[in-house]
């Protein structure tokens, strides 16, 4: 299938990056419609390369971010990230989004009292899904890139001794050698799993061996966000000391959770930081 014009309607909301969890600042710019058009690129897309030169040839849309005021957590009227630059390209089979925002601090660790940086793209599977999380009659598919997952992908595994260098823990019955432990070298995977309940039951957040920093989720309203059985998004994020550049990609129609863009009409897209 070849589409010269992949039309995306972009609204935005912001999830302030790197903040203490209870200060999550979510923002949405209600009704901001950008009419973003994906640029056709011949050949292979930089599906995991936010630093590819191809992006330089694509016009960026500056998106203003505002607070999300629909559901808790909703209070903070001023998200710490106020704008986002978005570029979208496709080659007929794949679509890639490049999200960039200024952020001098790279928060890619989950400590007990901090949250990591993250960004998301949401595609409406039916019209009328609204700007956040869809509705009972209009489902959405969400690609959620997380800085801590990116760290896991880059460095294979983040042991506690890397989060807290002075941390001292008792002996891990499933590990060999000394901390910081690595996976799978210093941990017996099948035994270790029994000590990590989230991993054991297959929670993707808890799986230490991550294949991609992007999680594919579906939702049909607030509180319904669920990891989708069919993971179709991939991506990569890099931090250059001043900003995050995150590319999120997937096949245009992977066969499951496909937005209705086959008919050439606009598809609702929401992005979040």
């Amino acid at each position, binding site marked *: 299938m070849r589409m010269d014009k992949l039309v995306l309607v972009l609204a935005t909301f912001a999830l302030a990056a790197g903040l*203490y*969890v*209870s*200060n*999550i600042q979510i923002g949405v710019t209600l009704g901001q419609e950008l009419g973003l058009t994906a640029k056709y690129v011949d050949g292979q897309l930089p599906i995991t390369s936010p630093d590819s030169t191809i992006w330089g040839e694509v016009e960026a849309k500056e998106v203003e971010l505002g607070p999300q005021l629909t*559901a*808790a*957590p*909703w*209070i903070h009227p001023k998200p710490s990230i106020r704008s986002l630059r978005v570029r979208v390209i496709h080659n007929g089979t794949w679509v890639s989004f490049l999200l960039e925002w200024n952020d001098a601090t790279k928060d890619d660790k*989950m*400590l*007990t*009292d901090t949250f990591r940086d993250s960004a998301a793209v949401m595609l409406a599977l039916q019209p009328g899904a609204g700007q956040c999380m869809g509705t009972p009659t209009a489902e959405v598919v969400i690609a959620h890139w997380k800085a*801590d997952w990116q760290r896991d992908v880059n460095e294979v595994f983040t042991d*506690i001794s890397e*989060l807290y260098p002075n941390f001292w823990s008792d002996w891990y019955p499933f590990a060999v050698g000394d901390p910081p432990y690595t996976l799978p070298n210093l941990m017996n995977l099948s035994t270790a799993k029994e000590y*990590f*309940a*989230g*991993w*054991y*039951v*297959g*929670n993707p*957040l*808890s799986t*230490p061996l991550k294949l991609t920093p992007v999680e594919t989720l579906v939702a049909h309203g*607030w*509180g319904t*966000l669920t990891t989708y059985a069919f993971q179709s998004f991939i991506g990569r994020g890099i931090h250059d000391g001043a900003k995050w550049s995150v590319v999120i990609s997937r096949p245009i129609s992977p066969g499951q959770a496909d937005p209705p863009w086959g008919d050439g009409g606009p598809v609702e897209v929401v992005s979040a930081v």
Partner: protein
Amino acid sequence: METLGEQKWEAKRYAGKTVFELEDRPNKENPVAGYFPEDLDYAHPNLGEDEVSGVLETEGGYFPTIPKPLWMFYLPRICNHCTYPACLAACPRRAIYKREEDEIVLVDQARCRGYRYCIEACPYKKVFFNLMTRVAEKCIACFPLIENGKIPRCFETCIGKIRIAGFISKPDSPNPENPIDYLVLVIKVALPLFPQSGTEPNIYYIPPINVPLNFLRMMFGPGADNAVKTYRAVMEKARQNGLENLDDEDLKLIGLVTLANSTNRIVHRFRIIRETLEIVGYDEHGGGLVKVPISEPKHVREFYDQRLKVYRHNIT
């Protein structure tokens, strides 16, 4: 409790706001008033745990005397599996649930996404963020053991042998033969910690009788006075008159303290055998589980051992 600020008890009835009602809560995103612990709060969890808490009010200063005028006590705290769990109320994803069969409160490890509202909301700070799995975790009350009629591991391994696990009846229909009902609902010597939280915690403590009452009231509410009075009176009578001269009610309290941790099974019913001064625990079908003497045999060893011709330094 600092979050709740100053609130009132009207006699034995709490007339203040609970964590569910406080409008002026620090974080309005969270429907429950709470405190989100910072990294440093977790840095030294045991700091000061063996230090004395104060000097008995009546003594007016520290002098090396016996019994010591200083006081302290250990307060083992696990998740209370509250009747109205604040953690559950705070979760925007409904990833926390209370099991119908035994009211154990669990965090669904597959559904949790590590938002940590539960950690902020729990007044007892009993949900923790697991840095490895990046989701919230808490005590599961060893539910696989409970399902098999056994007590949780921390109860079974309590070296002080002072924990009793069991099921409680509704407050208006206590069964005096059930150990928990007897201690909590009938003679009311076991009290919930910080009842003003409003979560109705289901771990009950027999307050230490040598600690100033003001302090105990602060921790366990106005019921502390009665609990201390009842417990102290029974112990006094036992000391003065001997166990065999206690009435049945008094024997029950001492018997239950002895019965604690004598079996790893949940005791649903107990009975005192006055003639032999024993207490018997039964399972839910009425089958006998354990029989223990209420009065433990006492051995006094002489300071000087004639046979070995040595002095003993520890004669207790």
